[in-house]
């Protein structure tokens, strides 16, 4: 506990959170609207970082889990009118099941092979949504009868609170004894096994936790937008953004992913005058960060002496 109070990261995060909480007092309604999805996005990126940075699994398909959560929740709400809480619970459960399904090949395959399976999982999910358009709304998207709230401030604090709680949970997990074991499993499975850790069990758990937060955030985001479409929740481009956010913020930091996600969304807004070229500029900045400061924002701040 003492180390927590002495940690720069802890106080920095707290300060960031306080700033974010005070932001609606100064920020315009639009900037608030921009930040709301950014907060959910940050949870996606943090969940991805748990898998990549700690369990050592390169998941090219974060949107497989997110999409299951989002569509799971959206479909039961739109078709059976379950209401927000039950639908979110259902979507999250579906995502967790998807996480387990994804963990099975992960335990067998390595490197690019597992990466490809995750990519294919996304493509298959996208195809399923298109093929079963009667249920899913297909490419057209699914409109929901319910939304979380139409009030920006409510949505903002809900999203901020959700992100803070998820971040705290994921961060605490990563620093806990179980997180230490997970990191050992990700870095050197052979040595971790020789120390008596059941690598399969810990990796499976990491997939479940990552899927839980991805799915939950996906389900909540669906109820913020009030619609679900493959382009918003499943498309590979969305997954790419999440990976870039996590790498930009700093791998293996969990909290860095928040910085990366907020940076991507805010930079996209700031560069909007560039029109279509704003995506170009954001990608170029991200590429430059990867080339020049591969530890990412937070990684560079925290581990300046190259102890990556």
């Amino acid at each position: 506990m003492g180390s927590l109070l002495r940690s720069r990261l802890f106080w920095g995060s707290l300060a960031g959170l306080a700033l974010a909480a005070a932001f609606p007092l100064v920020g315009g309604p639009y900037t608030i609207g921009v930040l709301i999805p950014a907060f959910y996005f940050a949870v996606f990126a943090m969940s991805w970082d748990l898998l990549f940075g700690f369990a050592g699994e390169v998941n090219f398909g974060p949107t497989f889990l997110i999409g299951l959560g989002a569509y799971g929740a959206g479909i039961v709400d739109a078709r059976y009118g379950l209401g927000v809480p039950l639908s979110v619970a259902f979507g999250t459960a579906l995502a967790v099941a998807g996480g387990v399904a994804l963990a099975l090949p992960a335990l067998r395959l390595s490197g690019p092979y597992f990466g490809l399976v995750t990519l294919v999982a996304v493509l298959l999910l996208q195809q399923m949504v298109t093929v079963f358009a009667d249920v899913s709304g297909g490419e057209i998207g699914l409109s929901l009868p319910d939304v979380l709230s139409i009030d920006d401030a409510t949505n903002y604090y809900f999203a901020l609170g959700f992100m803070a709680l998820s971040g705290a949970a994921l961060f605490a997990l990563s620093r806990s004894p179980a997180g230490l074991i997970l990191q050992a499993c990700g870095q050197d499975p052979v040595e971790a096994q020789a120390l008596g850790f059941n690598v399969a069990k810990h990796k499976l758990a990491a997939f479940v936790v990552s899927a839980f937060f991805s799915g939950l955030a996906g389900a909540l985001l669906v109820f913020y937008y009030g619609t679900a479409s493959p382009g918003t929740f499943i498309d590979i481009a969305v997954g790419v953004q999440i990976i870039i956010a996590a790498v930009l913020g700093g791998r293996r930091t969990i909290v860095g992913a928040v910085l990366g996600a907020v940076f991507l969304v805010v930079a996209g807004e700031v560069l909007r005058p560039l029109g279509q070229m704003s995506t170009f500029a954001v990608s170029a900045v991200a590429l430059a960060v990867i080339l020049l400061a591969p530890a990412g924002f937070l990684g560079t701040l925290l581990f300046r002496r190259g102890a990556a």
Partner: protein
Amino acid sequence: MLGLQILIDGFAVSALYGLGAVGFTLIFGVSGVLNLSHGAIMVTAATVAWALAERAGAYGGALGGLASAFLLSFVTYFAVVRPIQRSRSIPSEETEIFVLTGTLLWGIMIQVAIAYLATTSPHTVRPLISGVTVIGGVRTPTNEILTAALCWAAIGALTLLIERTRAGKALLAASVNPRGLTLLGFELERVHLLVWAIYGVLVGVAGVLLGAFLGASSDNVGTLTASAFSIVVLGGLGSVPGSLLAAYCIGYLETLTAYLVSPSLRNIPALILLVAVVWARPQGFLGRR
């Protein structure tokens, strides 16, 4: 009749898939790089060929497309891949994910630039030969035959290069054992340059042919990269014959599905096959472990 039609159509599509994937697998075999800007470079070749064709004619356009892919291939290597490989602050076990992320971002930049300069609407390169040829009662665009022939000519040229020239042998040797090649006095750096040059030509030809055969848009970038990636993994990472075999498997599977089941389900069986093969035989058809 239907059988022959499937045979012909599948052949051309598969040849195009194969050509696109061969360059991709060659780069991986020799330098261990999975280049995720692959699709973007292909579409650049097609778009440049289309844009130049008006002023420079069909051949001039095709050459221009080829040159643009060649150039971009080197830019990809010098500006993205090599700095990551040489970076001291990237731990060696993470080079792979950094190369993947870096080339992905680079691909997005190219894609956005194409959309900005030439819109997202697909463009078709003027075919070198128009008209149709009837093969056994099946009316086939002559351009389709030409596409298949050019693909195989390019693959044949590559085979000759690898099998018959010293530089080609060195390339092959580098994919088997780069250290051994260094010990024999070959500069690996030059071998890498050579392989990126070959890649540039292959991907350029594939892009221009794709533009003439099916048309290409900046929206296709992701699909093209994903399909090359899948074919290469299916065939066995780094194996050129494996990639060709896989390209034909996927090409025919898709064509069969499109003809016999439904065009809208075209991709699904191939995806399932891919998952099954990766699960049962992760090294792919002809891959080494």
